[in-house]
Every structure is written in structure tokens, then in C-alpha cells.
């Protein structure tokens, strides 16, 4: 079906189709609508879900964990302070290898308070062992959320699917949806690695470990993450077959003969497309590399793609406040470290706290990368 949906509506709709067993969530702008709309489906009996309206995000993630260890398919949604408040439990969910799927309408972190979109919330949890997807459009959000369930369950790791707060969460766009049954068939039923409610075969989940076992458990979790990329690619391929839409983990846009490209994630990719088109129209050889999967860090794909270009601008919608570049900039330069070609790489931080990022801004960045700016370590786009 072709529908007009905001990012939040599309997430809620996908959740309806996924029909998770348990949803435990807490409201926070700009993700609130997701569970709000989802609770309409609950109230109308359109899903089987047990909806747990917890008293905080810490409890939201904990209740998700409690339900997921019982073999249930479990989802939640949050943003910003909510994600930050879950921080402790994120690591626990991953350590327990629970495929909880979380919809995030990303937003900046306090202080000062700001309800608008940037990637600080998700990126600040990048070590927690969660898969992280960043989406460009509402359509992609919808498609990715459904895929994420399958990927997470195959990888036995939790997954976060992010759309930019307000910019996508509150933006109505045209989307093509799948039939309910198609989604349910695609996902099948979760096959849990273990089940707490199987009381005839009792297990203990989450023991204390001493020096003799912790690192080994962690190593096994790390291996879980190492195995994710092929799973993502398989699930995407399968999804492509039923939906006719494909999203490479890494997309190169008009990169064929590009002399300069920017790499980025999320909704601004669209805005950059417009800028690239305009500059191409003026004969400037620029392109864009869009990264959809932030965790795992797809180092081999990044290396393979980026090594082709002379000049690269890495655009972060978050700053690491470490007197160095943005987090993605750091990771990309690291990934390219041992390549022979070693493109020039520049760091751009843009759009924090919902700061408007226009095609003109994007052109400015592309232009700078093209000419090879060399003054400041990091450029803060649009800061007065």
C-alpha cells in the first residue's frame, strides 16, 4: 500500500505489523508518538502485544530485558535523555544477547535541554553492543525496523533503529508498506537462545563472574557482533526480494568519478543529494557516501568504498567533546589508516540540537572538501 506517514507513524505501523509480544516504553519527545500510536493498536485489539507503560526509561529497558529472556519478541522506543537513562541497561541487554529492537527518534542531550534532532543520544551508546541503524527517509525507517527484528534475532543482539528527531519523526512522507501477512511471514516467530519461563529446565540468567570467565563471555559477545554484517546483508537481500526495495549498508551516490565526497548518516543524506545534484549540474565532481549501519562498524566496506576518493568530508551530527573531531570522523580515519592511498579527510560537525542543515550548507561543505580546507581541525557548520 502507498501511505502518507510521518516517521513516528511509520514506526508505529511497522510495530503493528511486527506484532511484538511485549512493548515497554516511556514517552519522550520526539519519539513519544511511536508508542502513543502503537497503544491505539493495542486498544483496538489489532495486536497481541502486552504493553507495559513503565515509570521511567531505565525500567522500560529492564522490563524489555525481563520479557525478552522469556523468549518474547520485544520492542521499545525512546530518545535523548531516555536513551541516556537506559545506558546501564543497554549493556546488560547486549551481554544477555537479547534481540530487543528499539526505535529511536534521535535528539540531542542536555544541558541545555533541547528537543531537536541530532545523533548524540545513540552515538553516546555506541559501545553498548547494540546494532545501530540510521535512516534517511521515513520509508527507510519503516523498512529497516522490520529488518532489524530479523537481524537482531538471528544475531542474538539488540538493535537500535534511528530516525532523526522531528526532521523525520514528524515529517509525513510517501511510503510503500507491506501487507501485514507478508511482514509476519518474513519474520516468523522468534527462536530464543534460552527461555526463562521454561521452568522444567531452570536456568540462571545474569550471574556474577570473576576474572576467570568475564572476558570469555565478553569475547563471545564480541564475536556475536563480528558475525552481524553478513546477517544484515542476507536479511536485506531477502527483504529486497519481497519488498522490491534495497538498501546497501553503504550507498555511493554519484560517486563514479567523484573527486570529493562526504560521508554521513541519517536524514541529511537527502539534503546532501540535492546539493550534490546542484553541484554536479555545475560540473563539480562531488558525491556522497551514505552509511546506514553504524554498529557494527563496517570497516571493510568503508575502506573499500572510501579509498577510491581523493578528498572526504566526514559529517557528524554529534560531537565527541574531546577537542578532536566527530566520532564518525575518528572511526573513518582509523579505518582508512592502513590504506596506501590515504585520502584527505576532513571533519564536519553539523545540525546539533536541530540546527537547520540546508542544501546550501551541504554545498558549502562539498565545496570546502573539494578545494581542501586546511585551517581548523573541525568545522562546525552553521554555528554563529
Amino acid at each position, binding site marked *: 500500500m502507498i*501511505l502518507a506517514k*510521518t516517521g513516528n507513524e511509520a514506526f508505529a505501523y511497522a510495530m503493528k505489523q511486527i506484532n511484538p509480544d511485549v512493548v515497554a516504553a516511556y514517552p519522550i519527545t520526539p519519539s513519544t508518538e511511536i508508542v502513543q500510536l502503537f497503544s491505539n493498536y493495542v486498544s483496538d485489539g489489532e495486536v497481541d502485544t502486552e504493553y507495559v507503560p513503565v515509570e521511567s526509561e531505565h525500567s522500560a529497558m529492564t522490563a524489555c530485558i525481563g520479557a525478552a529472556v522469556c523468549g518474547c519478541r520485544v520492542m521499545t522506543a525512546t530518545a535523548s535523555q531516555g536513551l541516556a537513562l537506559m545506558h546501564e541497561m543497554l549493556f546488560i541487554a547486549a551481554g544477555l544477547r537479547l534481540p530487543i529492537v528499539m526505535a529511536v527518534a534521535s535528539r540531542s542531550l542536555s544541558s541545555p535541554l533541547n528537543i531537536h534532532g541530532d545523533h548524540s543520544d545513540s552515538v553516546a551508546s555506541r559501545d553498548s553492543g547494540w546494532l545501530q541503524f540510521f535512516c534517511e527517509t521515513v520509508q527507510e525507517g519503516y523498512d529497516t525496523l522490520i529488518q532489524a527484528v530479523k537481524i537482531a534475532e538471528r544475531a542474538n543482539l539488540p538493535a537500535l533503529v534511528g530516525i532523526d528527531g522531528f526532521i523525520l519523526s*514528524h515529517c509525513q512522507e*510517501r511510503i510503500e508498506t507491506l501487507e501485514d501477512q507478508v511482514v509476519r511471514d518474513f519474520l516468523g516467530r522468534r527462536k530464543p537462545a534460552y527461555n526463562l519461563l521454561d521452568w522444567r529446565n531452570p536456568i540462571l540468567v545474569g550471574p556474577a563472574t570473576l576474572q576467570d570467565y568475564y572476558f570469555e563471555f565478553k569475547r563471545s559477545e564480541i564475536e556475536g557482533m563480528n558475525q552481524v554484517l553478513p546477517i544484515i546483508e542476507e536479511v536485506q537481500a531477502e527483504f529486497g526480494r519481497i519488498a522490491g526495495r534495497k538498501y546497501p549498508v553503504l550507498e555511493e551516490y554519484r560517486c563514479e568519478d567523484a573527486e570529493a565526497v562526504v560521508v554521513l548518516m541519517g536524514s541529511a543524506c537527502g539534503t546532501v543529494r540535492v546539493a550534490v545534484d546542484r553541484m554536479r549540474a555545475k560540473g563539480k565532481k562531488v558525491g556522497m557516501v551514505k552509511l546506514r549501519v553504524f554498529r557494527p562498524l563496517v570497516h571493510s566496506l568503508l575502506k573499500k568504498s572510501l579509498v577510491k576518493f581523493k578528498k572526504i568530508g566526514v559529517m557528524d551530527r554529534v560531537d565527541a567533546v574531546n577537542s578532536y573531531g566527530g566520532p564518525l570522523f575518528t572511526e573513518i580515519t582509523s579505518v582508512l589508516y592502513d590504506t596506501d592511498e590515504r585520502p584527505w579527510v576532513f571533519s564536519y560537525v553539523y545540525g546539533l540540537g*536541530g540546527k537547520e542543515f*540546508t542544501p546550501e550548507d551541504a554545498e558549502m561543505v562539498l565545496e570546502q572538501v573539494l578545494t581542501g580546507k586546511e585551517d581548523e581541525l573541525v568545522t562546525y557548520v552553521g554555528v554563529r
Partner: protein
Amino acid sequence: MAQVLEIRWHGRGGQGAKTAALLFGEAALDTGKFIQAFPEYGPERMGAPVTAFNRLAEEPIYIHSGIKNPDIVVVLDPSLIEPAKVTEGLKENGVLLVNTVEDPGVLRQRLNLPATVRVFTVDASKIALETIGRDVPNTPMLGALARVTGVLQLEPMLEAIKDKLLTKFRGQEKLVESNLQSIRRAYEEVRGIE
């Protein structure tokens, strides 16, 4: 029509500017267009001036930034005209559509608008009161907007909106009917059509 048609709605928190933009987006979608509809990104309070936006195009829309220079400005509440600076950024050859008893000509003069800007008015509040029974000008304004933009035909639009309203009002057919009626009337009664 520009490649991408950009619309800005002005209303007050509680008046449904955002809903109108979303409904308009849905209606346009049904006519095969690519669309975007989004509210002003900010904490909205009841009574406070707010804005919402639409983009319509024949091709996929990639841009994800705000609208600064709309082709069309729609104003739901005439008391907003001055305080909300509704004409700010309006394109030179843009359109201003206002819910007011005032005549387009008078309004144009009062606001000192260049001749290139086309001005339309409609008494949507009156229409709403007469059809729906409450001062909810956002629905009738959809009709007026369809008329002045010309991008949507009345009947297919009514069809499209009917669907949404049926869901929204949980099947209260009468209420839906009166809403549709208000759209039809505003479509007819909009003033300033040359």
C-alpha cells in the same frame, strides 16, 4: 508550479494547522504526488502562534530541511497576520490565503503586498460554524487551498480526505460528512479567484 511546491500554514496551538498540513499531504499523495508535511519543530502551546509545512512534487523529495520561502502561505486565524509576520519569506510570485471576512483587495492593501503576490480570502470560520458547528477552520481551508493551488481536484481530494476522517473520527459518518461539506463550501466560496 515550481518543481517542488512549498506551503506554509499559520495557526494557533490547538487550531489544527499541523493536522491540516498532514491531511493535505495525504490528499495530495492519493493523487499520485510525492509529498512532505511537517509541523514547526518546537514546543507548541494552546493559543501560541504555530506553523506547519507541505511540500508537493511529481518526483521523490529528498530534501530534509525547513521551508523558508514558501510558494503559498495559509493563515487559519486572521488575528495572526501581524503578530506572526505571515508574509515573511513568501515568494515574489507567491500566494496568500487567509481565513477572514476581509476582502482580498483590502487585505493586499493593508499588508502592502507587491502585485505579483496573489491574495485569496475565505470566511472559513463561518463555514465551519455553519457546517461542523464549531470554529474549526482547518478543514474548510483545505478546500480553499485546493482551489487556489489547482494541484488537487475537488472530488478526488474529498474522497481521499473522507477515508482519513473516517479513521480519525472512528466512523462517525455525520461528522465526516459535515467536514467534507465545509471543504466543498470553502472550495466554492474562496474569494480572489480571477
